[in-house]
């Protein structure tokens, strides 16, 4: 048993960061993750930390299997890099949210029961929201509300599924493959929303570009990869995943060609890369599952490095669109280097991390006889290379110099340290893939450095440069927005809500007026009943000839003496009557 829970360490670090003064805050955001990393390294596979809960249930805050340890390691490493990256931040809320968010994600990865999982899951969604709102722009506020809407929907679907399982006595997390029924579909939908499965992915391309620079680094690394981990744990071998995964990879491949906003483009790539993972776990053989886990691991590294490099550009220049940049290699040479290390990694260039993980998935698909899957993933790989290495690399860092781009401030040291660590890891796992393969959940024999693999990638990546060069003039993106599935809830759904709301308002007003009319009618009737039944002329009052304005009760009421006599008489009569009887 270990009481050193890396996730709780990060959550506490976040709370401490919130109360520390500005100049000390950086120690909490760097020190906390380092402690969490040490705690992860001290954990052993099989570690269990159970605490008693209500109704004889136990909460397994730590219940560690091999894959859980691997994901805990990469998320702890990511927290360290993220901590350095956010260390310059002057916002206490951003630091707190980032740390607590990373801690929550570690909580999901380490836990062994449904209740703990849903707790950390929701905490992660809630804390990450503040990484969007901390950007403090009108667009980020609106995007944050949409993010909240989607994630609370997803979280509640998951919660409903978990309740169904737990109420049936099923407390601990296990694979749901082969199951059916409401719990299966609710959990699949809940996890699918977080894993950005198309068409439930639009929150990612909507919210991530609006988050703070450091916020998008954290979010790009954690939520979707945590969901990918849950997918592997729960749904490995489900056939539906193959189709979903391939569709995701191809869907994103098309959008990245036309996208202009740097972080939105990278967000589409998250969808695409999760597509690889989902397809791999859907294939379900040892290579497929290992490939999915390996690709999630490497994805955290290169995707965060891409977000960091792009974030550094946005931080220094304030520009987020590709077509407004150009010639950045002269202004930010180190950032250029880090960007290209990440770009080569995600594209699958040999000796970088993407190569060692992507090819495991493809070989897994081929071994299962799913050649069409391998083919589609090859095309998605080409799209990645063309859109990131070629399109972003050329138009942002090379291409035509844009004089309007001014580096307004220096890249903070913390950002450079974070990118440096990440770049070293991208190359380390690319050159020594055994380091990664030894952590994978299933036993496998796989050699990635073979001549046919190398030559295939040289041909794929080399030749795909030709169409890019041919259409270079058309490849430069325009200042346009590409609509995605969020259109449905930003346009027609919004209109529907407005229509329903207007209908309700109109009904309420009409009902109010009708009630008022009835009330007025009764008012008139009760104001002067004698006039109403025709005993008095309607025009004139009987006493003084003045038309009554309304009901005057004293006019028809007996004076107090008469009332007393009537009451006393009635009382005496009643007493006499009772006495006689």
């Amino acid at each position, binding site marked *: 048993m270990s009481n050193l829970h890396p996730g709780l360490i990060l959550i506490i670090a976040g709370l401490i960061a919130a109360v520390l003064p500005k100049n000390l805050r950086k120690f909490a955001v760097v020190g906390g993750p380092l402690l969490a990393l040490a705690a992860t390294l001290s954990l052993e596979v099989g570690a269990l930390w159970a605490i008693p809960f209500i109704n004889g249930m136990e909460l397994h805050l730590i219940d560690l299997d091999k894959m859980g340890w691997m994901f805990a390691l990469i998320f702890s490493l990511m927290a360290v890099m993220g901590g350095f990256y956010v260390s310059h931040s002057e916002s206490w809320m951003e630091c707190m949210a980032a740390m607590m968010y990373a801690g929550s994600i570690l909580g999901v990865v380490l836990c062994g029961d449904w209740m703990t999982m849903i707790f950390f899951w929701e905490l992660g969604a809630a804390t990450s929201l503040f990484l969007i709102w901390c950007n403090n722009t009108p667009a980020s506020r609106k995007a944050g509300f949409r993010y909240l809407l989607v994630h609370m929907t997803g979280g509640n679907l998951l919660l409903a599924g978990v309740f169904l399982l737990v109420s049936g006595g099923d407390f601990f997390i296990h694979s749901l493959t082969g199951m059916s029924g409401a719990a299966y579909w609710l959990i699949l939908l809940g996890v699918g929303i977080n894993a950005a499965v198309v068409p439930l992915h639009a929150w990612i391309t909507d919210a991530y570009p609006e988050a703070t620079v450091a916020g998008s680094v954290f979010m790009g690394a954690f939520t979707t990869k945590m969901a990918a981990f849950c997918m592997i744990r729960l749904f490995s071998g489900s056939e539906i995943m193959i189709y979903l995964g391939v569709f995701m990879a191809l869907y994103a491949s098309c959008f990245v*060609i036309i996208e202009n906003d740097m972080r939105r483009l990278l967000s589409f790539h998250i969808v695409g890369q999760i597509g690889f993972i989902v397809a791999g776990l859907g294939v379900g053989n040892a290579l497929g599952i290992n490939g999915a886990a390996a690709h999630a691991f490497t994805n955290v590294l290169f995707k965060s490095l891409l977000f960091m490099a792009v974030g550094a550009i946005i931080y220094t220049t304030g520009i987020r669109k590709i077509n407004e940049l150009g010639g950045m290699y002269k202004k930010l040479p180190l950032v250029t280097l880090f960007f290209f290390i990440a770009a080569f990694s995600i594209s699958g260039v040999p000796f970088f991390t993407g190569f060692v993980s992507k090819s495991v998935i493809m070989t897994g698909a081929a071994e299962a006889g799913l050649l069409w899957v391998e083919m589609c993933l090859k095309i998605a790989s080409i799209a990645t290379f063309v859109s990131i290495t070629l399109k972003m690399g050329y138009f942002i860092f090379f291409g035509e110099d844009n004089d309007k781009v001014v580096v307004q401030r220096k890249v903070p040291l913390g950002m450079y340290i974070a990118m440096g660590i990440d770049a070293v890891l991208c190359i380390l796992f690319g050159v020594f893939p055994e380091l990664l393969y030894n952590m994978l959940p299933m036993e496998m024999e796989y050699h990635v450095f073979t001549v046919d693999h190398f030559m295939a990638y040289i041909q794929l990546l080399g030749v795909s440069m030709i169409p890019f060069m041919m259409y*270079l003039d058309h490849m430069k993106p325009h*200042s346009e927005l*590409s*609509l995605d599935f969020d259109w449905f809830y930003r346009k027609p759904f919004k209109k529907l809500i407005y229509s329903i709301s207007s209908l309700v308002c109109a009904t309420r007003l009409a009902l109010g007026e009708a009630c008022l009319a009835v009330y007025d009618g009764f008012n008139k009737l009760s104001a002067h009943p004698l006039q109403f039944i025709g005993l008095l002329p309607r025009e004139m009052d009987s006493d003084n000839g003045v038309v009554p304005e309304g009901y005057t009760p004293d006019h028809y009421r007996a004076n107090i003496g008469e009332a007393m006599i009537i009451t006393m008489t009635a009382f005496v009569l009643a007493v006499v009557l009772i006495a006689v009887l």
Partner: protein
Amino acid sequence: MFDKLTKKTIYIIIGVAVALSLVVEILFAHPHGHAIWDTVPGADIVIAFVGCWALILFSKKILAPLVQREEDYYDKEDDDNE
């Protein structure tokens, strides 16, 4: 943008690299799979060219006109409602 000479140089470099890889593939590779791109040397060249060309064409000519709008597409609507 690249001038014509630079473009030509890049094409030549790509051509030489790919041709070399093809030679190495024919001489030294021991394919592990049974798909056409594993057994036929240079099949990846065709996949890459056709795949990339089709992707660019589809995205730019079909997808872009369908989904791309002016940048204040959503904001305009928001202002109307506020």
